[in-house]
């Protein structure tokens, strides 16, 4: 059963009813719960309903000169709920992490219809257990996220993206090591290889204009000065792909084993999105503790399984 509630009460009621009747809920459409609830630029926090798209959220923040520094592909199609449930991130992961790092408060409807919240609206808060982390990356298997509060940042005064096209993966790997070992302050550190294109290292950074100029100069000493952009990320993510994560130091060896396939790698983090390649390792069964968590919050398995 798919839920398409007109408001929060309807969602709570519909989910509780499905749960009571043991009807599995396979998905939900929260476009009716898409409002911005609060934005306090002077506190650098913002609260919105989970059905709001990331693009709309960013648009509102931008009017006050702020942003949530997360840039997963397709922000128009991604709701804040999905952003959290998938713990998403984009090219700026190297500088700003993932949704987990910016979420400070959450409201969730549990399968029995109860509304629970965790965290709050202040940037530092350790009252109670951190249920935010339980729901981040839980893929909608424990409850339906209806509201979230994020800490946000001022938009950088200036930004720049540079790229370097490499002849071989080895060349890219050597350059990557020099960049990682430097004192550069990068927000983007990606390596990609799209079909028919050579491996390309992408570096992005932002801040006061003086910082951006200084970093451009430092990168030009490494021979990196070609302007770049982030279009590769949206392009790549339209194709079916898999993800794997390795230690950053194991990145190049892992990429070498991917042979001909296309990839986008968060090179600093060691996270690789790739098209076909070696068969995926069989999915490991959830640990007993993971299963206990699922059973505790969704005892009748009304929501999708993990």
């Amino acid at each position, binding site marked *: 059963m798919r839920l398409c509630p007109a408001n929060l009460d309807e969602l709570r009621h519909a989910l509780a009813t499905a749960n009571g009747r043991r009807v599995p809920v396979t998905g939900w459409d929260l476009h009716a719960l898409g409002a911005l609830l609060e934005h*306090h630029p*002077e*506190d*650098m*926090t913002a609260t919105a309903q989970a059905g709001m798209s990331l693009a709309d959220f960013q648009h509102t923040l931008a009017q006050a*000169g*702020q942003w949530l520094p997360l840039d997963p592909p397709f922000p128009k199609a991604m709701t804040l709920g999905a952003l959290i449930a998938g*713990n998403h991130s984009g090219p700026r992961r190297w500088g700003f*992490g993932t949704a987990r*790092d910016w979420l400070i408060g959450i409201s969730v409807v*549990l399968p029995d219809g109860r*509304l*629970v*919240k*965790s965290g*709050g*609206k*202040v*940037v*530092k*808060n*350790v*009252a*109670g*257990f*951190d*249920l935010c*982390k*339980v729901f*981040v*990356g*839980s893929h909608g298997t*424990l409850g339906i996220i209806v509201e979230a509060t994020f800490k946000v*940042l*001022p*938009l950088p005064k200036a930004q720049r993206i540079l790229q370097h096209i490499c002849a071989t993966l080895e060349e890219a790997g050597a350059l990557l090591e020099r960049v*990682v070992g430097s004192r550069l*302050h990068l927000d983007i550190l990606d390596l990609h290889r799209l079909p028919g294109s050579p491996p390309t290292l992408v570096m992005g950074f932002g*801040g*006061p204009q*003086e*910082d951006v100029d*200084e970093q451009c100069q430092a990168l030009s000493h490494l021979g990196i000065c070609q302007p770049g952009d982030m279009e590769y990320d949206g392009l790549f993510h339209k194709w079916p792909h898999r*993800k794997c*994560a*390795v*230690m*950053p*130091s194991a990145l190049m060896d892992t990429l070498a084993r991917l042979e001909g396939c296309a990839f986008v790698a968060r090179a600093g*983090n*060691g*996270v690789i999105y790739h098209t076909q390649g070696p068969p995926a390792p069989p999915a490991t069964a959830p*640990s007993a*503790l*993971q299963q206990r*968590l*699922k059973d*505790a*919050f969704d005892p009748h398995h009304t929501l999708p399984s*993990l």
Partner: protein
Amino acid sequence: MNLASTLCVPLAPRLDTSGWVDSLRAIVGAESVLADPKELLAYECDGYTLQRHPPTAVVLPRTTAEVAAVVELCARLNLPIIPRGAGTSLCGGVLAVEGGVMIALTRMNRVLALDVRNRRALVEAGCVNAWVTREAAPHGLCYAPDPSSQPACTIGGNIATNSGGPHTLKYGVTTNHVLGLELVLPDGSVQWLGVTPDGGEDVEGYDLRGALIGSEGMFGVVTRALLRLIPTPTHWRTFLGVFDTVDEASHAVSDIIAAGIVPAALEMMDRLIVSALEEAYHFGFPLDAGAVLIIELDGLPAGLAAQAGVIEALCRGRGAREVRVARDEAERAALWKCRKRAFGAIGRLSPNYVTQDGVVPRSKLPQIMQFIQETSRRHDLRIPNVFHAGDGNIHPLILYDEREPGQVQRALAAGHDILTRCIELGGSVTGEHGIGVEKMDYMALQFTESDLDAMRTLRRVFDPDQRCNPHKMFPGSKRCSDFAVRKQAHA
């Protein structure tokens, strides 16, 4: 003489220790078990001294296997277990309310491995916070969360309380810097949660490591942790802004944040703190200032210069009479040393104090500081302040003298007023110190019964018997003070 110990009587008949203390000795060796009442006195409280209660026994294991065996024995005998680090908690987090076996990690204190390329450190849970950065510094790396207690507190304690520090304003708190950890669950089984020492950053399944961080020792015993290291900032500028009033300084903080500048640290100290620090360490603080701000920027040299001008202008715009810049690394280090020793200097002002840890939205700082001044007058107690202003995380230190009749009650009432006001202003009763036994009753003010129920559900996932660090966090838990009040009434 200590007030609390005279007020606080054991809640239950002392646990029958027959046999099982010997079993503990068999696991960890006789020299690693304390059960003599005199030795146990050192473990009767933490940094929160209003309540005291010794555990029944303390074990000092050296390996994860020893911890697991001890925990497994306690599971079989249905004994409470209380994980403990350095005991610097400020909320009674390690109080053995009904006795039980305290597992102190202080002998498991090594940095096991540094992985410079991947910017990771593997440490034992009893490793002292400052030691991580000490080991990493020669490689140009550091461990970002820097609680003021960092020369003493342990990584295990930091994980349990999700500790912050001055520089977490820019770099984030403990949960942003702990990649993975080894946990001995209350049934004695050992699990690794989160990123493994040789694994990638994204882990399948639920973020159990995240769920554990900040769980105040109630989910099991952390034995090892994998920490994220960051490059040590190479360029910084540290200012001392001198203001006539706390109000002006508070407004300057709000202005800096509102201007879109995120300093690495932004701390406030008021007149009482400054004078106590000056007396103790002779830094050269102005004694007649109403408040000082320590503002630190780090980053690339060019941008620093530009932002420095803005900071100075904003401070002056709010009436700063002086904005000093630390001349060199030595002066900067001296300034931070003073700041981080501020609680320690309070001994010069008062025989007793209780530290509060409320949070307000940053723009409400002027309001809460005003309220603290009123509260101080209303209860006729001095309340100096030294705190993480940039985060809106206040630390009013309520001074009292337990020998003076009524002062304890007034100190508690003043704390209550301030924390209640923090909630009213949209904040929280604790930004980094935790709930422990101290702030249990505020949980019902800040959360609904459903919220608390969801937390209890999470707890039972890790600890179905609720045997690990019991009587903390949730309103209605048993406490010493219930008895304290009664005993006082009799007196």
